[in-house]
């Protein structure tokens, strides 16, 4: 599915930062910041899927939510279709609320339990004045149909549905405004393994049918493999490696990516034999006081002195392959 993208960039994120202020001490006199997303840059081409992976708490959701302006970015640019939307007012943002949509992680918390499925899906039609009356109903039925639900589900309440069905209702809600770009924030993590494939397949079909662009967030590499064209790996608020899916799986460069890949169980004894499991030691450090230099150095088996002093920058080491690690300087010397 990698041939579907053309070269036009739809979204470009430049030096995006999102710090959360937390008050500590009496009367909040001493302020501290959670550096949830710290200076990340990447782009997504029209019609492609960028997978974003990383451990829990590394800032994936924050990245997604900042892009869609649920959070105000601390710094950086979010260039969507040539327009920087990072500082637009809620009013100017309204057209983008139709173009960019989001699918959420928790199928239980993401649907308002006091509204019928029909109203949940139809809400955006009311907000944007897209359809009313019979047309609205027609559209709701159509959306339900598209995600494999039937029209008599429209009058029911979310608690009557299973996790997978709820997630499809969430997808229908996102599709209601005919979006171009959908941020999928771990849409399958909370689902049973048996229905994960179902939802991924559906997203894949919808992408083909409507030419959608996805930012697909997941916490391990096995989940994004089948849907992503390119994959970005995040660690503690930083993007450490971005490249094509195949390149990432075949020749991962960043020590963290290598560790993540080795953690995927492989149902093939032949491969398992020559695969070596890299076990990550220690815990993820706190994003309030991240380690100096390379944030991964506390758990990296290749860590050098330089890693504590100097922060590695994300650099293109191969065509379309970006890595942030000091080891790269030796392996891929800067040519000029």
């Amino acid at each position, binding site marked *: *599915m990698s041939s579907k993208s053309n070269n036009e960039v739809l979204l470009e994120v430049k030096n995006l930062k999102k710090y959360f202020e937390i008050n500590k001490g009496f009367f909040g006199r001493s302020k501290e910041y959670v550096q949830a997303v710290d200076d990340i840059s990447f782009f997504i081409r029209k019609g492609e899927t960028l997978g974003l992976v990383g451990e829990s708490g590394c800032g994936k959701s924050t990245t997604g*939510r900042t892009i*869609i302006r*649920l959070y105000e970015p601390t710094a950086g640019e979010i260039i969507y279709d040539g327009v920087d939307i990072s500082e637009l007012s809620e009013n100017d*943002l*309204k057209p983008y*609320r*139709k173009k*960019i*949509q*989001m699918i*959420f*992680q*928790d199928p239980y*918390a*993401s*649907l*308002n*339990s*006091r*509204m019928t499925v029909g109203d949940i899906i139809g*809400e*955006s039609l009311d*907000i*944007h004045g897209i359809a009313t009356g019979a047309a609205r109903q027609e559209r709701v039925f159509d959306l339900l149909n598209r995600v*494999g*639900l*039937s029209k*008599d*589900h429209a*009058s*029911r*309440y979310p*608690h*009557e*549905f*299973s996790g*997978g*069905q709820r997630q499809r209702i*969430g997808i229908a*809600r996102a599709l209601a*405004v005919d979006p171009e770009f959908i941020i999928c924030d771990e849409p399958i993590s909370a689902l049973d393994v048996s229905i994960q*494939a*179902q939802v991924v*397949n*559906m997203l894949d079909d919808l992408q083909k049918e409507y030419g959608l662009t996805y930012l697909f967030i997941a916490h391990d590499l096995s989940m994004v493999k*089948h849907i992503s064209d390119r994959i970005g790996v995040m660690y503690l608020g930083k993007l450490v490696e971005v490249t094509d899916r195949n390149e990432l*799986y*075949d020749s*991962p460069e960043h020590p963290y990516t*290598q560790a993540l*890949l*080795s953690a*995927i169980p*492989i*149902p*093939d004894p032949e*491969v398992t034999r020559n*695969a070596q499991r890299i076990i990550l030691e220690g815990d993820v450090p706190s994003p309030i006081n991240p380690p100096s230099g390379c944030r991964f150095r506390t758990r990296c088996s290749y860590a050098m002195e330089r890693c504590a002093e100097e922060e590695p920058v994300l650099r293109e080491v191969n065509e379309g392959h970006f890595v942030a690690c000091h080891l790269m300087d030796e392996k891929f010397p800067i040519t000029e």
Partner: protein
Amino acid sequence: MADNKISTDMWEKVDMSTLDKEVIARKSLTYWQDAWRRLKKNHLSMIGLFFIVLMTLLAILGPFFSRYSYSDQNLELGNIGPTMEIYQIDDNDFVYMNKEYKLVEVTEDGHISKRLVPTDEDMMQKYRSYEIDGKEVVIDYSFAVAAKKSGDPDAKKFEIRVNGDVIDIHDKVFNKTYWFGSDSLGRDLYIRVVYGARISLLIALVATIVNFFIGVLYGGVAGYTGGKTDNVMMRIVDVIATVPLLLYVIMLMVIFEPGLKTIMIALGTVYWVNMARLVRGQILSIKEQEFVLAAKTLGASSWRILVRHLIPNAMGPIIVSLAMLIPSAIFTEAFLSFIGLGVNAPMASWGTLANDAVAGLRTYPYQLFFPALFISITVLAFNFLGDGLRDALDPRLRK
């Protein structure tokens, strides 16, 4: 890292048409239907609800069943209880003797006709004589002093003689004229209690409206906006909450006249603070949930998010606390009226009725009994209902 052995074609596409299109078997129940179903199982709550409905009907329709208005008085027929011990003078003449040893003409089944005028009366000799249908009826209450001295409550205090023969109680009947008895000014207690119910339910209504429109919205806006606005709004609430209600009402009396209006203004301006706090807390925890974020990504306005998403999801605790706040509002009004800061005479509220009754409590306990009974029933009914609602609306109990 080659797991390249797994390729896309190893995944099998599931045919969407076969998926979950089947209808869900269970009957569709909304949150409220479900809550109602559970509330119905709680007997105490249903009794509470029954009494609230009954009280409301009484307040609305009660006056139609009475010939009197709350201000009609008949000084001659004061202090007659809801049950009367009547004496038979002859075949069709019955009298009731009140606690002041005066006779009132009644019918056998308990209707009151008029107070009789004594033909002779001697306060020193402690007797009073009447002429009824040609017979001489004498009330001799000279035993009262001795009875009081003996300390025995059952000692004989008086005797009634008809043409010289002592007669005994004929019957104990219900007062058909004044169902709950009459007060010291001869006003019908029943109609006054009914008007008291009107006032109490009016207070309940005011408390509800105020809590809903000020408390819920104020708390909702503070919680949803957050930050500095929230801080300022909640400090205002703190200030209002620290002023004791009693002091506040007394201060208001300086500006307005004492009366129902003042109590309503007092309750209206301060009674929503607890609700505001509760709602704010609820909203703070709900607003981070993903369905609210989803509404934002769809471009919903803050108002829409507040009214369509946040408040409906906080409705359970709101209703429960409303059911608990109403009786306390009713009680506050009764209390303020009781200590003389409430409604003005001749208007009656349960609190003023109770207050009026206190002076004659030992002789006419029924005058306190009825307003106290109604206050208790109403407050208990709301509390039972509130308890049941808390269980019924608790999402943790949902299946």
